[in-house]
């Protein structure tokens, strides 16, 4: 298997092509399901086989180079895949979670037409292929191929219901905003080649390690440009606006692409190129600041949203902010850990919401739900498990990873990392506030959806039912992972003087090994901590208290005799704030006014003035007019008189004679 890494993505690509063909051949849904889900299943098996084989052997990195892709002068790029510890972790959860979501889709999409069903699975398989290429790529250009591929599939799948205009528009918005980030990424590839002559990750790492101080400016530039790409792909400030709109796509798509995998590609990329950030304190600080600000910003919006998918969307943006915050203080392993746990619980939340929406006949507004826990127990309990995880309640998955990030941020502040200690401390405070808000809005969603009395219509109430097993089974698996996944993978053994218990920390440590960088990086492995053990325990207890506080406030607001009353009173007391949050800070409107309208105006100008007047009238018609005018004058030379012509001949001879002499 290790010699044939290409199988893993190609199985998914084959599935995509097969589903397309089946769609054209008008096959029935059962066959499409088998092919579409089976290909991903096989890919999962292949991925785990590769993982097992990798663990059983001793080399750090397995690199398969297939052919020379680009050979342009000195710019050489191989089409090559590599398997190391980081990508092993990634392919494991990407294929597994992806497989679960494929299974879930069988139930969720069963009411589509056969051709639509085939199209869905084709796109979804294509996405898996791109994501796997992204994660397995051994150099920046191959990663970029996957990067672009997932962006394309995101567009295709968001606009799956393309007959509705808002879906098509949302797809376009996602693609265009992504493109802005991709531009930064491309510039980063060029800069990397210009500075180091190579784009292979291993070679770049060696180049940086050889002289960390000397390459600081190059590393800063490349790090920042790469992060621009991550801002677009992982929906950070200011390019997050596409993610909430992306909820127009089918819910499994939101779960897979906009929760578990694609949006985390940015975090993976930062972790993969961690050597740039370790060599550049400025770039790292930028990552942390933007991550932290995004985390809080998105959480505030999530507080008042009424559409269940929008709450989850802003929650995703916020959690991605946490991951980047972790990366920004050098805790790359913690960030990747949060990626994995986030995949579990966020996918579970989205699939659960899909189950709810399915039962309510397409309704997504939580104000029209309520009391669903009686009708959908499996969905309810898995949703609660995932909510406990995201809120950061021990011992659930989210607690372990988020707490790790918070601890590392605090440590960075205390140790005055790279002399930015004050900023890092401020970010820690913001992150803590964000944790409070996260707990609050997630439990708000739980209470509004599942508790109390049903607030929708009678018709819908009669049809409330639990989802079929194809949908509930993945929910159960993901719910279970949300409970135990954290402690299984990354139990915070360092709190108990047993750092070896933290499996993921130990596993990924060699990939993120600190380079003797300017300013140093706080210990993110089994090394000495910047803070004492008692401080760490205090931090843990503090963050748990904050999370529980958020939960209790939500409970106070939304459960009991008068649900919604306290919320309504608060909204009446601060109407300005409430409207601002509800309108998502009017960011979309701002972008429309500042970016979209000027571009429209420019396009209009280019059309009406440059194209119509200048090019068409002046040059095209104008030249024809000039020719015509010349002809109108010159025709008078054709007098028809032979003597005139003879005169011309004689004149010509005379001129020739003079000139030749």
């Amino acid at each position: 298997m290790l010699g044939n890494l290409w199988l893993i993505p190609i199985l998914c690509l084959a599935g995509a092509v097969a589903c397309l063909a089946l769609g054209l051949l008008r096959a029935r849904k059962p066959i499409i399901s088998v092919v579409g889900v089976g290909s991903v299943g096989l890919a999962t098996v292949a991925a785990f086989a590769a993982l097992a084989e990798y663990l059983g052997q001793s080399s750090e990195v397995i690199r398969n180079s297939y052919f020379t892709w680009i050979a342009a002068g000195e710019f050489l790029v191989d089409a090559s895949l590599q398997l190391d510890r980081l990508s092993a972790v990634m392919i494991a959860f990407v294929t597994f979670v992806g497989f679960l979501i494929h299974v879930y889709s069988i139930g969720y999409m069963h009411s589509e037409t056969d051709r639509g069903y085939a199209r869905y699975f084709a796109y979804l398989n294509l996405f898996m292929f791109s994501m796997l290429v992204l994660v397995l790529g051994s150099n920046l250009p191959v990663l970029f191929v996957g990067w672009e591929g997932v962006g394309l599939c995101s567009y295709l799948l968001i606009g799956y219901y393309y007959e509705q205009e808002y879906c098509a528009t949302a797809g376009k918005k996602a693609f265009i905003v992504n493109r802005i980030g991709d531009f930064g990424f491309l510039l980063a590839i060029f800069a990397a080649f210009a500075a180091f002559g190579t784009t292979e990750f291993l070679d770049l790492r060696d180049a940086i390690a050889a002289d960390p101080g000397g390459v600081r400016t190059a590393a800063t530039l490349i790090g920042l440009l790469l992060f621009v790409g991550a801002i677009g792909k992982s929906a950070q400030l200011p390019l997050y606006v596409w993610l909430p709109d992306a909820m127009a796509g089918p819910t499994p798509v939101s779960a897979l692409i906009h929760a578990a995998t694609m949006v985390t590609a940015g975090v993976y990329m930062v972790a993969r190129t961690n050597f740039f950030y370790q060599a550049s304190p400025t770039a790292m600080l930028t990552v942390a600041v933007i991550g932290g600000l995004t985390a809080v910003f998105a959480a505030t919006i999530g507080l008042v949203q009424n559409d269940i998918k929008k709450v989850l969307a802003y929650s995703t943006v916020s959690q991605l902010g946490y991951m980047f915050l972790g990366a920004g203080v050098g805790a790359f392993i913690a960030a990747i850990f949060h990626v994995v746990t986030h995949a579990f619980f966020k996918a579970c939340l989205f699939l659960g919401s899909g189950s709810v929406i399915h039962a309510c006949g397409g309704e997504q507004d939580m104000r029209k739900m309520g009391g669903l826990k009686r009708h959908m127990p499996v969905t309810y309990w898995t949703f609660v498990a995932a909510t406990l995880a995201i809120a950061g309640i021990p011992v659930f998955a989210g607690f372990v990873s988020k707490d790790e990030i918070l601890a590392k941020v605090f440590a960075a502040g205390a140790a005055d990392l790279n002399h930015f200690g004050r900023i890092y401390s401020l970010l820690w405070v913001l992150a803590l506030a964000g944790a409070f808000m996260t707990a609050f809005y997630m439990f708000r969603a739980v209470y509004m959806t599942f508790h109390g009395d049903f607030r929708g219509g009678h018709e819908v109430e009669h049809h409330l039912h639990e989802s079929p097993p194809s949908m509930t089974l993945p929910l159960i698996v993901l719910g279970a992972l949300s409970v135990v996944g954290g402690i299984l993978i990354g139990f915070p053994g360092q709190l108990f003087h047993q750092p070896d218990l933290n499996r993921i920390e130990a596993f990924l440590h060699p990939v993120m090994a600190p380079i003797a960088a300017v300013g140093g990086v706080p210990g993110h492995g089994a090394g000495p901590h910047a803070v004492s053990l008692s401080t760490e325990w205090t931090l843990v207890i503090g963050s748990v208290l904050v999370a529980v506080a958020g939960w209790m406030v939500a409970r106070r607001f939304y459960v009991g005799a008068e649900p919604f009353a306290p919320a309504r009173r608060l909204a009446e007391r601060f109407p300005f704030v409430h409207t601002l949050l509800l309108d998502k800070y009017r960011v979309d409107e701002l972008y429309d006014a500042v970016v979209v309208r000027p571009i429209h105006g420019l396009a209009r100008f280019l059309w009406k003035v440059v194209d119509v007047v200048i090019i068409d009238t002046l040059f095209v018609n104008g030249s024809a007019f000039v020719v015509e005018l010349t002809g109108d004058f010159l025709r008078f030379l054709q007098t028809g008189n032979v003597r005139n012509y003879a005169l011309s001949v004689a004149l010509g001879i005379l001129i020739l004679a003079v000139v030749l002499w």
Partner: protein
Amino acid sequence: MVPIVFVIAAVVAVVFAIITVAHSSPVINVLSLVVVFFAMAAIFALLGMDFLAAVQIIVYSGAILVLFLFVIMLLNIRSVERLGSGRRVQALLGTVVAVGVGAVPLIAISLLTPATGAVYPGALETGTVVPIGRALLTTHLFAFEFITLLLVAAIVGAVYLARREPR
């Protein structure tokens, strides 16, 4: 003595050339051109080119210009106008151009050094029939035959152009 003969012939040629060009009656034009050709034949003979002189008279004056006379009589061509009448611009410009066209060679000639020349009688051994005939039928045979073709083409063309439309 020879230069005097040449000068007389030259003067005659020029005078009658002017009459050819200027007179209104076509018949007078043709006849004065005959005189010009005779003068030129005289000059050829003076330079020892006997054959050429003979050909000039026989072919040029005797055949071509007679043809002209035939056509004039056939079509009953009268005099049309006087020299330079009508179309002032054409006339003015034409005069200027013509004079310019003539001036160029004159200026060129004035820059040449006068070279040697042969004189009658019998000074030019290549001027008689025998050498010319030999050259035409050996060295320049191709050109000779080609001229034949040209004449055939001319005859056919003339016949075709001048025929009456079949009714």
